[in-house]
């Protein structure tokens, strides 16, 4: 019978899928382990009236009509929103009255009911409103339009308005960027400062802004370094009193980018580099290993708070000096890491902040329209749980470069290259200032919980001092009233922001969802990716408030609930095996992967910062990336594919059973890319891609890796020809960046295709993944193997065992 089912899945091509899509068919999970690759999702076609699936997506594509029906389905109901997503063709409306409901202030959208040419009924509060006179006038020709449905508000789910004066509490602020960087001895050894200086220097032209754009720099070690950019030459001022910081000449710390351009350039290519480099010799000026990050941040807040804007913090080590609460102690004992990872109750305090200094600072920032973004370069413990709050609450982002095997200690060259590429993206990406986002939903629905980086200001309003295209948000929704007489409900997310050109804009996304009255409709139209994304956010909250074991149990219970509900919905189908609806068939696979994810795994020694970062990612990644982050893609790249024609290898599931002895595999975990080369690989392929004839000569990233100890020579230095003057002998000297990937670009079709595919993967995400090149016998082999989520590991079930466990739980 298993064979038969396998064939059935195999033949499940497009025409078969329709019946499954309409929920007529259950899927026996035990029949095929490769359920992800053997089945296909059909993404419904979209026109402009449907909200882009990556912008706003509901966990349930059809909404249950009562709260009790939702309760019966046992599924989480919520929205995943990526409001500032970079996509083109958003109609921009200006010079016309912004049509809104007079009662609930909803914007006119394609799903309202037009009663006649003059009146419309709001789909959020059901009030009947008038259309303004100028609505039917074409702004260009000034003639009357016969067909109002052609207006962008009524034909597009996403529109952008240019806002008038009523939408401003103060004149739109200029783009203001303040960089706060670590310049202690730690920073010197990491060697990031010259990289940062060069990167900012090269990006000065493409930083978003207008003629008013402001920029400033503050450094810190055990003192605070201010740089006066108001004069002809940059002036370096040192403030030793870090308990009570006095800010010298505040107006010349943050200066106009255009009028002071020569001073800024001089600062970046001269002053900043000379901080460590007197008389051309690379030596630390003073061995100062303190870090007064808390004071520096408070000072930065003082400088920028009157304008609003963005503070970029680059952290190289744990803050060790400064006002009370900003000084952090090392809470993690690396020797206890393994036992700590099993004892989840001890882990909970480590996931939570130790002090609220950074949170309070972020709240102040948020009030003054300042967002803080954190770049953490420290390879050792740096209390991301506490310091990260500064970005979380102020609506910023966290960038972490301390992951095991991919940090400054083990591979400085490549990490610096990643840092530099990420910084370019970060500096040039679109940005919105002094923003707020309001989510309105049809009367009877309310927002239960918010997930993401922001501050919740009232029941439906979040304040986002900055909005950027890389952060996603989620809201859990609860149903308060019955929708028996309605056909659909509506959600409208409106982001009010100031664009870099100083123009006030409103971006409005509207999502309309039909209402259903039966349980089978709710379950058959569930969105498994969205549900997984929502469940993992809820699990992160649970881990912080209770402990990780509880969170794991809650995720397993969510699956058990789903399976037992399906038994009630389709008793006949569920009578054999372990059956679930087609629309939720991958949930057990995703949950089984989440249980082994860095954020939730137990029993495996995990750096606490890495875990905290993984949790932060699960909370703030937008829907288009989170699935890869939860369940990585494994591509067999030795097969035929042609990236130049848009033809990419098809991913296989994460089991070693799918790894061929003579294959080459590319594992994409969103944060890292592993190229794994098996022993019996074709020699022609080797010489094509690496230019070597012997497998053993492939430069493996594990060769120079020593476990946690002193970093050895930068591995990648072998490939780059232009940089390593002092990289060979001593790790005391700062590293220099190399290329992000160690793959040579050779002039033959195989190499070109592989490189094109890797380039495609890297360009599909905002941040550079860390690249690992591993031979089958590599010392880092385990880091690849830990992603084989479908296989059994020392401390966790394989996917099949997990299914069997679920089955026995259901019977019991």
């Amino acid at each position, binding site marked *: 019978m298993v064979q038969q089912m396998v064939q059935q899945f195999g033949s499940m091509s497009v025409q078969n899928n329709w019946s499954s899509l309409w929920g007529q068919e259950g899927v026996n999970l035990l029949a095929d382990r490769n359920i992800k690759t053997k089945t296909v999702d059909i993404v419904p076609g979209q026109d402009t009236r449907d909200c882009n699936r990556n912008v706003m997506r509901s966990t349930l594509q059809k909404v249950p009509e009562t709260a009790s029906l939702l309760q019966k389905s046992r599924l989480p109901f919520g929205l995943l929103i990526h409001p500032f997503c970079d996509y083109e063709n958003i109609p921009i409306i200006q010079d016309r009255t912004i049509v809104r409901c007079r009662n609930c202030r909803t914007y006119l959208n394609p799903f309202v009911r037009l009663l006649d040419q003059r009146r419309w009924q709001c789909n959020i509060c059901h009030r009947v409103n008038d259309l303004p006179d100028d609505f039917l006038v074409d702004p260009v020709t000034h003639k009357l339009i016969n067909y109002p449905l052609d207006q962008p508000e009524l034909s597009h789910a996403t529109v952008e308005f240019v806002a008038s004066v009523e939408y401003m509490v103060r004149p739109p602020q200029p783009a203001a960027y303040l960089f706060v960087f670590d310049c202690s001895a730690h920073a010197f050894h990491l060697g990031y400062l010259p990289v940062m200086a060069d990167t900012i220097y090269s990006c000065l032209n493409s930083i978003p802004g207008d003629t008013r754009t402001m920029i400033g720099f503050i450094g810190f070690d055990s003192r605070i370094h201010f740089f006066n950019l108001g004069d002809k030459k940059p002036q370096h001022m040192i403030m030793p009193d870090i308990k009570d910081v006095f800010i010298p000449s505040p107006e010349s710390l943050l200066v106009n980018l255009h009028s002071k351009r020569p001073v800024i350039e001089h600062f970046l290519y001269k002053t900043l580099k000379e901080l460590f480099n007197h008389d051309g010799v690379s030596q630390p000026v003073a061995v100062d290993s303190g870090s007064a990050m808390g004071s520096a941040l408070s000072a930065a807040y003082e400088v920028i708070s009157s304008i609003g804007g963005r503070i970029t913090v680059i952290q190289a080590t744990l803050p060790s000096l400064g006002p*009370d609460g900003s000084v952090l102690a090392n809470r993690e004992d690396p020797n206890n890491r393994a036992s700590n990872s099993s004892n989840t109750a001890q882990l909970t305090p480590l996931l*939570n*902040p130790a002090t609220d200094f950074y*949170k309070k600072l972020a*709240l102040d920032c948020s009030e003054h329209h300042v967002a803080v973004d954190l770049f953490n370069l420290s390879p050792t413990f740096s209390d991301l749980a506490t310091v990260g709050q500064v970005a979380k609450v102020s609506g910023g982002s966290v960038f972490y470069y301390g992951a095991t095997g991919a940090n400054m200690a083990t591979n400085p060259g490549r990490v610096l290259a990643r840092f530099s590429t990420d910084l370019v993206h970060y500096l040039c990406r679109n940005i919105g200032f002094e923003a707020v986002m309001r989510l309105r939903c049809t009367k009877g629905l309310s927002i239960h*919980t918010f997930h993401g980086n922001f501050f919740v200001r*009232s029941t439906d309003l979040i304040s986002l001092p900055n909005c950027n295209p890389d952060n996603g948000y989620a809201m859990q929704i609860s149903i308060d009233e019955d929708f028996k007489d309605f056909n659909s409900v509506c959600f409208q997310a409106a982001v009010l922001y100031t664009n870099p050109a100083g123009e006030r804009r409103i971006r409005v996304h509207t999502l309309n969802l039909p209402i259903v009255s039966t349980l089978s409709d709710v379950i058959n139209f569930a969105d498994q990716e969205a549900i997984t994304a929502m469940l993992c956010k809820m699990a992160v909250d649970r881990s912080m408030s209770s402990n990780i074991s509880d969170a794991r149990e809650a995720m397993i219970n969510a699956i058990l609930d789903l399976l037992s509900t399906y038994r009630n919905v389709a008793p006949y189908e569920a009578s054999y095996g372990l059956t679930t609806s087609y629309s939720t068939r991958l949930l057990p696979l995703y949950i089984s992967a989440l249980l082994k994810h860095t954020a939730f795994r137990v029993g495996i020694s995990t750096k606490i910062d890495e875990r905290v970062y993984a949790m932060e990612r699960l909370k703030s990644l937008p829907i288009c990336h989170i699935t890869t982050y939860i369940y990585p893609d494994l591509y067999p790249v030795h097969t035929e594919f042609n990236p130049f024609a848009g033809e990419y290898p098809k991913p296989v599931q994460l089991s070693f059973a799918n790894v061929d002895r003579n294959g080459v595999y590319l594992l994409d975990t969103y944060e890292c890319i592993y190229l794994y080369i098996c022993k019996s690989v074709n020699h022609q392929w080797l010489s094509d891609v690496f230019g070597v004839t012997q497998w053993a000569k492939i430069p493996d990233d594990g060769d120079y890796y020593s476990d946690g100890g002193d970093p050895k020579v930068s591995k990648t230095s072998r490939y780059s020809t232009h940089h390593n003057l002092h990289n060979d002998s001593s790790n005391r000297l700062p590293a220099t960046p190399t290329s992000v990937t160690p793959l040579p670009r050779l002039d033959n079709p195989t190499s070109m295709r592989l490189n094109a595919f890797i380039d495609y993967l890297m360009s599909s995400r905002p941040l550079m993944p860390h690249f690992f090149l591993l031979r089958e016998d590599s010392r880092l082999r385990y880091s690849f193997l830990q992603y084989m989520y479908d296989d059994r590991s020392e401390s966790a079930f394989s996917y099949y065992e997990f299914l069997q466990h679920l089955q026995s739980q259901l019977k019991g």
Partner: protein
Amino acid sequence: MGFTFAAFSYVFALILDAFLIFFAVFHVIAFDELKTDFKNPIDQCNTLNPLVLPEYIIHITFNVLFLFAGEWFTVLINIPLIAYHVYRYIHRPAGMSGPGLYDPTTIMNADQMSRATREGWFKLAYYLLSFFYYLYGMISSLIAV
């Protein structure tokens, strides 16, 4: 008949309980204001947090008096609330530097909000009922021989 220590503690408790009722009313109003967008969560937490410990201290103060007066039954009915207060304070959000229970970043979650609202109403009822009970206790200890 006489003004015993028990009678004194009831009189004292009566006065303090009146304050507690005000605290509870204030608490209920504060969370209602949050729910209806009248107040900013940061301001609201700043006003609520300093009031948490005084409330607990007032409640514990007159219970200590009852304990000394040997009013065992009165102490008994107050013990659950004292235990709840202690539990609540131990499980307050991690890393708060000031006194108090409420964290402006999490207070807007529906779970926390409904819990706080329920807590407010429950305490209001509890303090009101105990107000009348203390009144009864005061009179009965005053007229007791």
